[in-house]
Structures are given as C-alpha cells and as structure tokens.
C-alpha cells in the first residue's frame, strides 16, 4: 500500500517537472517557470497594461532560469525585441532570486521614473518574500512614480467615507502647506514583517515624501496585531524627535484604543502639523521643550482651598484685633528672676526598638537627561534613512 502511494507521488512529481505549466511568455509579465498562478499573472498583467495606457510607460517583469549567463544583455535584447524604443523598464530575475538585471528602454525610460537609486525597483520586488507580492510591489512602485497615492489608505476600513474625505482634505492641506507628506495607513495584516519595516517600505516604495529627502511622516495601523507605528523620513526625522514621538502617541493612543479612529488620526495630523511648524520656526520640540498642556483645571479648586485658608487666617487676625480681654492661666511673669533651680535632672535610658522596612527599589529612569534627546534613525530596506517608533494599542 505504501509502495503504491509512493509510486503515484513520484509519477506526479515527474509530471510537474516535464510538463510546462500554464504560464505564458508573452505580455508584460513573463513567467516561464510558473511561480505565478494564472489568475495572479492575469491581475498583474492588467495592472501593467493600465500603467502603459495611463502613462505611456512599459513595465516588464521576466523570470528566467538560473543557468542563464549575462543577464544584462539578455534583458536588453528582450526589451528591444518586445517593446522597441518605447519608454519603459524591464526587470529580469532568475529563479533563485540571486541574480537580477534591470533595463530602462527608450529615450526617457530612466528619467521618467526619477529614481535616486539604480536598484530601487529591484529592492521593491525583493523585499517581498512572495513572487506575486514582489511583482505587485514592483508595479506599484513604478506606478506611484507617476502618480502619488492618496495620503489616507484605509485598507482595514476603519473610517466611513465622510471621515475619510475629511481626513484626506486635512492631510492634503497640511502636506501642501508644510511641504511634507503626512500619511495615514491602515491595514489588517503586515504579512509577517515588523511594523517598522512595513511602514518604512510602504512609505518608500509608494512614492511618498516630498523633495530630495522625501520629507514625510506615515502612521501605520495594523489591526491584525493591533500595532501602530510612525515612520518619519527626511525633515520628518528632524521635526519629530523621539520625545516628540512619545508625546504625539500619548495624545492619540487612548482614542485609538477606544476605537475612535477618526479622532485619533485627526489628533495625529494636528500634532504633526504643530511639530513641523515648531521645527521650522524654532528648534523642534524635544524632551526638554515639549508643548505644554493647558494647566489642569484641578488647580482652580486647589488654589481656591488654599485661598480659603489664607482668607480665614487674615480675617481671624483682624478679628483678633478686636478682642483684648482674655484671662491668664499662668503666672510666668511673676517668677522671680534667677529663682529657678533645677535640683535634679536625670535621663534614664530604658530600652530600644529597631524596626526595618525594605527600601523602595530605585527606579532606573534614564529619562532624566536634559538638553534634548534628538531623533534616532535607522536605514530601511531601500537604503533611505527613517526615524520613528511604535507599539501596541
């Protein structure tokens, strides 16, 4: 019985090896090996076609065998044979994802994308573990070079359309005025990556960021693990310090936790706006110069109570001026000067008690430093510098 099943399995395997899969080798996405399912390939094909139609830019993706040598010339000849001198790009990757080549075709194939790094499209693909996701990311990256996506991406569906429109209007206004993109992104899963990676990559590979330093701030909400993460880039790193980030998150986290997402995002947007303004006009808010909340109204009754005591004391003194008749209970002014003689004075020690209580552990707070903590930053997959921080809600 066991032998038979093994036999069948072997047969099936050999069938897989020899019979070419349903993959085609035409169109924008060429997968001769069959890493992509047919419907996946179809989706990607449509996407690439829409880019070509909308922006006149050809986007090719080719998977080739690993034994192919000189990928570069191969990519060039392939592009020229299928697209001629049309503007476009071709990314060729071998099956092991160990070798790759990118070729920009046409006169403006390279300049139209305005890439600051040669391997940007490759990393966009390579950062995903899955072939389909990788190609999708590659296409999105190309697409967003032509058209910046919306500043609110509500994939998790946390906002109703009215809230989303209002938030989008606000973010657009802020982004335009402050010359930096303020983004809100909600997702239901981040596919096994860390919130930091996901937020950084989403920002980088979706064309966010203004100016040469890609100034911007992105708030990621992952409903799957209830993560939040703020990724800062360019001027955002400077404007939003580590201490500032804690301050901002303190303000919106309770709204987030209680499910009032629209309020949380608006709070975030307003605070980022305030922080950037501060950074532009003065030095950024930092651990020693965070914006202050208005003084708690709790102080009003407290000072009222203190004032009550003072008022009572003063009036008691004034009232006391009216009273000058009082009886005397002692006769100290009649004691004859120098007549007091201490004839016996003994201090007898009886016993002693010693009690001990454990000392409270010194709190290891290193937050005592002054002078500003500044912003810490790290390098993302694309090679850009990001700042930020996050947590759970």
């Amino acid at each position, binding site marked *: 019985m066991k032998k038979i099943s093994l036999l069948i399995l072997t047969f099936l395997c050999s069938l897989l090896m020899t019979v070419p899969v349903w993959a085609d080798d035409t169109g924008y996405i060429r997968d001769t090996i069959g890493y992509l399912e047919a419907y996946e390939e179809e989706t990607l094909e449509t996407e690439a076609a829409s880019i070509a139609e909308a922006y006149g830019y050809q986007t090719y993706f080719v998977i080739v065998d690993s034994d192919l040598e000189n990928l570069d010339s191969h990519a060039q000849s392939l592009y020229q044979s299928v697209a001629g001198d049309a503007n476009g790009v071709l990314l060729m990757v071998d099956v092991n994802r160990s070798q790759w080549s990118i070729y920009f075709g046409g006169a403006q194939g390279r300049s139209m994308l305005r890439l600051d790094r040669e391997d940007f499209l490759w990393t966009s693909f390579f950062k995903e573990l899955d072939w389909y996701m990788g190609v999708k990311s590659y296409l999105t990256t190309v697409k967003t070079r032509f058209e910046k996506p919306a500043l609110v991406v509500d994939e998790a569906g946390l906002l109703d359309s009215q809230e989303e429109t209002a938030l989008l209007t606000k973010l657009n206004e802020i982004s335009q005025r402050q010359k930096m993109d303020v983004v809100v992104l909600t997702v239901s899963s981040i596919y096994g990556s860390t919130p930091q990676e996901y937020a950084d990559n989403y920002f980088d590979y979706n064309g966010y960021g203004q100016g040469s330093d890609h100034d911007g701030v992105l708030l990621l909400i992952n409903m799957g693990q209830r993560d939040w993460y703020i990724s800062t880039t360019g001027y955002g790193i400077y404007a939003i310090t580590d201490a500032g980030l804690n301050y901002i998150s303190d303000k919106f986290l309770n709204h987030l936790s209680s499910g009032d997402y629209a309020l949380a995002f608006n709070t975030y947007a307003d605070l980022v706006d305030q922080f950037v303004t501060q950074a532009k006009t003065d030095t950024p808010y930092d651990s020693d110069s965070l914006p*202050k909340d208005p*003084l708690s109204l709790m*102080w*009003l009754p407290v*000072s*009222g109570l*203190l*004032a*009550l005591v*003072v*008022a*009572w004391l*003063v*009036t008691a003194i*004034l*009232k006391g*001026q*009216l*009273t*000058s*008749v*009082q*009886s*005397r*209970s*002692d*006769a*100290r*002014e*009649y*004691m*004859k000067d120098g*007549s*007091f*003689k*201490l*004839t*016996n*004075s*003994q*201090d*007898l*020690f*009886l*016993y*002693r*008690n*010693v*009690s*001990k*209580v*454990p*000392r409270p552990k010194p709190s290891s707070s290193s937050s005592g430093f002054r002078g500003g903590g500044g912003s810490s930053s790290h390098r993302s997959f694309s090679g850009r510098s990001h700042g930020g921080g996050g947590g759970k809600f």
Partner: protein
Amino acid sequence: MAETIEYKCPNCSGAIAFDSSIQKMRCPYCDSELEMESLKKLDEALTELPVSQDLTWDQSQANQWQAEEADQMRVYACESCGGQLITDETTVATSCPYCDNPVVLKERLAGDLKPRFVLPFKLDKQAAKEALNKHLLGKRLLPKVFKDQNHIDEVKGIYVPFWLFDADVAADGKYAATMVRTWSDAHYNYTETNHYSLLRSATMTYERVPVDGSSKLDDRLMQSLEPFDFKGAVDFQTAYLAGYLADRYDQSADISLEQANQRIRQSTENRLANTVQGYGNVRKEDGSIRLNNGEPIYVLYPVWLLNTSWQKKKYTFAMNGQTGKFVGDLPLDRTAYWTYFLSIFLVMTLLIYGLVWLFYWMM
C-alpha cells in the same frame, strides 16, 4: 454714722485731690501742691480728734431700704456740703454727688481692711480718653461709625483691691520620652526608637502674683491689665485715694488664693516641662507641685474704667493706671468681615492659580 475724710487745702480750705502728673496732692482752687509725706502726718493727727457729734444721723427714721439692701448700704455725710452720701458696702473712696468733692471713708480702711501698699495713678483721665481713641485705630473690622457714634458715659479712676501672693515652689516631674534615629543600608531603612524615663526636680519663687479682690469687677478684665509693676508701689496713705474711687476687697484672701495657686501651678508645670529638650514625643507621666505660700498682701492698684455705649449696648474698657495698657473688646462689623473674607479669598485664588500657572510654564 462713721466718719468721712475730706482733705482740705491748708491754704484755701478747698477740697484737694491726688494729682497723678505731679504725684502730689494739688488744690484745684488755688493750685497749692502738698507733699504726700506732710499729709501723712496730718492724717495721723486727724485720727486723734474726737468725732463730731453733729454729723450723727438717725438711720432708723430715714430707712426706706430693704433690710438686705440696708446691710450693704451705708450713709455718710459730706464734710464740705453736708450732703448725704449713700454708698454700698465696699466703697472706700468716692465723690460727693452734690458738690463733687472727693470723699474717703476712713472706717473702711481700718484694721484688716487697711491696704499695705498703694500703687498711685500715673496716668490721668485725659490719657485714658486718648488711649481709648488710640485703641480704636487700625481695627479694620471695627464698624466705621463706632468711633464717631460711641460716647463715653463715664470715666472712672478706681483703686482696685488686689491680693498679692508670694510662693516658694518645689516641683517634680516624671516624663516618658523617645528619641528616634533613622539610617539605611543597601536594602533596608532602619528606625531605632530609644525610650527614656526623665526625672526633673526644681525649685522656684513667685513674687506678688496678683488676684483681683473685688467681686464687682470682671476677673478677666483685670487679668488682661496685668502686669502692674510693684516697684512703683508706696506705703498706703489715704490721701492717695482722694479724687478717685476705691473699693475695699469683698473676696477674701482664702478664696483668691485658689486662683493664684492655679496660675502658679500652671506656669510651674510649663517651666519644668521646658527643661526636657532634645527629645521627640514627650509625655508627662507623673508630677508633684508643692507650694509654700507666704502671707497675702493687700494692695490697691490703679485702673481707669471707661464705659461707653453704642447702639444700646454697653462696652467696658479698662486701662492700667500705671503702665497705660488698654484693653476692651470691640464690636465686629459683620459686613466688613465678609467683604474682607470674600475679597481676600477671590484675590488669593487668582493669585495662587496665577502663580501655579506661571511656575508651570517656567518649568
């Protein structure tokens, strides 16, 4: 019918009285001044003279007083005008209601009733009135109209009878006390409480503790006037009373002694407890105070009494006739009180809130 003394001016026979500003007798009519010393001599000579029979009075015919009241009433005749003086039992010196001449009732100063010392008035009636005006100054809660509307009904210079007690005191005290020491090492905070028993013994002397011997005067009022400086006292002479009112004591030394003991005990206890120092949480466990009282001394101390009325209420003020210390409770202006209270409350609330606000933003 007992005799009265009226000091006559040897120059013009006018009635003379003690003048506190010159500390002598002065004749208001001819401005003659008489030394107290010479009057003393005159006094002694006077007592040897027989009593004038003309001044006897048949009390039974004119007796319209209740028996009880009559006990307290005495009828005297004024030496100047022959007018009838009715005084109560304790009056020693007064003035004739008809001719306003000062009168001293000598019989009330005889034997036991004779004071040993008298502290002569140093301040006169005018000083008392000025002191009252000064007393009303700077009292923010005093009704504004009180100063203008209150009028002095009478100003009386009174020699108040006082008993003075000397006492030698021996006192013992036992106290339980603790001393606390705290320190800490790496893991614990330590509190060490040392318990002690403290023994203290002391002796001291009190001199001339005064107790008001007149039941007519408020004890509290008299105590508020303390202290009188006994150094100013002189041997008693009736002449000092001329021109003033005076009462003899109606509260015996025995009764007064209790009050003196009370006060001596209290200050002895305080003084002894003061010797315990450097301890935290001292508790008295036991104590004994033994007083050895000397003989009480009967003296007259000078007091100005001012009675005023305002809005049908009487206010009594008193001034120490020696030192000028002025006491007397004053009415409270309720509206002013609450105005002050509320305005201070509001201003302070804003001030404190403002300060907190300022501090908060400076941080």
